[in-house]
């Protein structure tokens, strides 16, 4: 067998390059597919958690549904219970204009969660501000598994 540095090496390089590009594309396509499938499967879990936060964990002392009092302490206790079940939680509360007011929990690492991406749910809520005033905000909850 004669190895010709010109055309053969070029052909090999083209072949390897194409295989690399399409394997990457296939992996990324599977990632997108997994992300959506995962989103569907874990969506109910994220919704349950967001509803519990909205209706129980963050409800103010007067118990009025939909009026939240933001508390790191209550969220920490709740996050620990979820962590024992292998579920991670990040909570963000922002204004309707997009200004971030409150965050709790670590941000998901995009590399670690590449094939198990986080699922997010958001709800409009009112956040108590004292003196009978309440600010309309958005509660965003991100959930992902270890």
């Amino acid at each position, binding site marked *: 067998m004669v190895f010709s540095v010109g055309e053969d090496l070029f052909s090999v390089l083209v072949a390897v390059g194409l295989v690399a590009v399409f394997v990457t594309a296939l992996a990324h396509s599977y990632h997108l597919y997994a992300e959506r499938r995962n*989103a569907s499967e874990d969506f109910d879990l994220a919704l349950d958690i967001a509803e519990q936060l909205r209706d129980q964990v963050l409800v103010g002392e007067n118990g009025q549904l939909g009026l939240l009092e933001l508390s790191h302490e209550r969220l920490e206790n709740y996050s620990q219970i979820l962590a024992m079940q292998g579920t991670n939680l990040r909570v963000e509360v922002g204004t309707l204009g997009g200004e971030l007011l409150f965050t709790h929990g670590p941000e998901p690492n995009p590399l670690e969660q590449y094939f198990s991406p986080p699922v997010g749910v958001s709800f*409009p809520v009112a956040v108590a501000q004292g003196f009978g005033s309440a600010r309309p905000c958005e509660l965003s909850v991100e959930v992902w598994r270890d």
Partner: protein
Amino acid sequence: MEEKGFGYVADMLVFALLVSTAILLLAAASPTDPKTESTRYAASFAQSTLRSLQNSTVDQFGGFEYRLGAFGFKFDIPVVGESAKRELNHKSLAQLLAEDALLNLRVEAAGVDLALLRPNQDMDEKLREFLKSALDRIIGGRFGYRLRARTEPINLEFARVHFETEIVGLTQSRTQLCSETMMISLPASQEELIQRIEEVLNIGLIRPELEADPIIEVTLELWSR
């Protein structure tokens, strides 16, 4: 060897074509985004939105004011103007809706709305615009919506007294995902409500039988976009 090299490239191109087809099939088989299609999420979102209307104060949406008037005429004369102005910034949006219902009861006789003296008519029109802009901000384009507020009609011998309003944001909407309802008490007792109807009709009434608590029913429908 040169021909063989090009043969390899042709093989690779066929391989690439097969992989591309596989990727396209995989992408087409992907499930849809549950945030826009899930009826459970939509129902929960609608409950949240209704509770936001119940709890958020008007000042957080830029404040609400209107002028007293009658038959489309507003008291804009400089001396009277300020005293005819009503600012309602510390109430919740739901309280505004209930107050609007009480102040703008509609009287229907033989299926026709009677044009009565309604000093707070301006509130009705401005509140609809105000609520639309508030709902646009709260829902943020994620769903189409229709908000309906109505009272149970009070049937008198000669007329029907009720309140009904509707705010719609349904551009390009497709299917209805959910319909959630909340009840708000009208800020008046039965006796006060009857007095109010007497004022509106300008006559004395034989006391009609009313429901135990005068309430306003607020229904929010969410539609997929």
